């Protein structure tokens, strides 16, 4: 079925926004909708390889509730989206550069590579664009 691609620009490091991005990306992907996620700014830090959940996820009231209720981990949701559908994830090349990081500092099996914002915005002209 022809479904418009979904482009998610994730730049917040807030747990609630990362969780919502993971939910949208995974549900979109399993609903036969191509999804691309561009991760930049503080959001990059949440994808640090090997972080414990308490370091990875910082937020407000709903972050506490998500942890207390054992909501599915955002990294797991992103992985399931990639496993079950057409989900691509890109790390912002600028954000990695200012951190002095290479892609291998981020969680394994999530990112398809690094990308510049210009290319992502250009690709996104053909779909629905969401910023978190």
């Amino acid at each position, binding site marked *: *079925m022809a*479904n418009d691609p979904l482009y998610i620009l994730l730049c917040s490091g807030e747990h609630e926004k990362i969780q919502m991005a993971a*939910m949208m990306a*995974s*549900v979109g992907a*399993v*609903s*036969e*909708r191509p999804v691309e996620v561009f991760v930049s700014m503080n959001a990059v830090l949440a994808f640090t390889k090997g972080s414990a959940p308490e370091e990875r996820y910082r937020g407000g009231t709903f972050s506490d509730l998500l942890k207390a209720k054992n*909501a*599915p981990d955002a990294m797991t*949701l992103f992985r*399931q*989206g990639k*496993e*079950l*559908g057409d989900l691509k994830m890109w790390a912002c090349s600028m954000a990695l550069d200012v951190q002095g990081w290479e892609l291998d500092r981020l969680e394994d099996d999530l990112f398809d590579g690094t990308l510049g914002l210009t290319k992502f915005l250009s690709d996104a002209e053909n779909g629905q664009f969401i910023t978190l």
Partner: protein
Amino acid sequence: MADQLLDVKGLNCPLPILKAKKALKAMPMGATLEVVATDPGSVKDFEAFCRTTGNELIESKAEDKLFTFVIKHTA
């Protein structure tokens, strides 16, 4: 009687949909999957999921806060 049963009671969005997709992916075309959920949002979610993926929602019923769906793997 469906070919396979998926119990997602106690799980919230988006896990019922993700688990249903995973189960369907492993099933042959034409096979049926019965999903039992407790998330009230799953009623509209499974309608939308079947509409967008092209799978057929054969049955959807609510009984005593239990929601049961039968999906035919057609896409």
